């Protein structure tokens, strides 16, 4: 089966994330005064061939830990969907 796993990588809450801060200031400058915080992250799609969803997630988890995110500064969330 073919699965699409979406990895969402975000900075940890404890890290002041400069891109998000800059985007927020820009929006506030445009008059969007309601915005309180913005955090910019990364979205990664993986297409994986596996026997079932659990196996696809297991593979994705290994890949995430090996390279997709840096646990020193980031957290990663995985979501699976079957595409065929």
């Amino acid at each position: 089966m073919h699965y699409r796993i979406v990895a969402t990588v975000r900075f940890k809450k404890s890290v002041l994330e400069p891109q998000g801060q800059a985007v927020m200031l820009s929006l506030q400058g445009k008059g969007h005064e309601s915005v309180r915080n913005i955090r910019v992250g990364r979205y990664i799609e993986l297409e994986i061939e596996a026997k079932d969803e659990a196996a696809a997630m297991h593979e994705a988890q290994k890949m995430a830990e090996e390279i997709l995110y840096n646990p020193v500064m980031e957290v990663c969330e995985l979501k699976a969907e079957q595409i065929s």
Partner: protein
Amino acid sequence: MKAGILNFPGINCERDLLQILRNEYSATAELLDYRESFQHHYDIYFVPGGFSYGDYLRSGALAARARSLDSLRDAAQKGAPIVGICNGFQILTEAGLLPGALIRNKTLKHICRWVGLKGSGDWANQFEAGYSLPVSHGEGNYICDADVLHRLQDENRILLQYAEDINGSTEQIACIADTNKKIIGLMPHPERAILPSLDSLAGAKKYGQRFFELVFQQLGV
């Protein structure tokens, strides 16, 4: 001295290092290909600056997973001295050989200029007043958790701090060492403060020389 310089696609400071190590320190210096493992028979390793793999994913992330890095890790376990400069520092943190991480400068700007630095930890009082080196980075904002920071401080492993806050780095950290004080990473470029053709500051050569002198002394090379 026999020096190994790790090279990756997108690295652009490897020739500067090669030339300086050969011409200024009479070293036998060689470039090490990222696709190949190597035998540990060098006195010191350098991981140079640049933009390995176009800084894709995270600065240094992909280089840190290259085959040559497995060999570097083995060498590190045997106590080999390693110096990572700029992108090299990012690669060493990504590889887990140095603690913490380097994220986007708080100003979001790439900073390319000479900056004032002061020695701290083991290198306190080792530099003259006004000491400076060139920096050129967009992601030099050093972060780490409180435990790591306390250890760095308690063990005198913060070796250089920016004289002023240029990029948002925790404690204005510019250079650190690992637990065994055999691996050093820094964002400034000492190799750009040696060749007269690259000097944009009068007397800068001695600044670059001072750094390498201390490194060779500290790492016992």
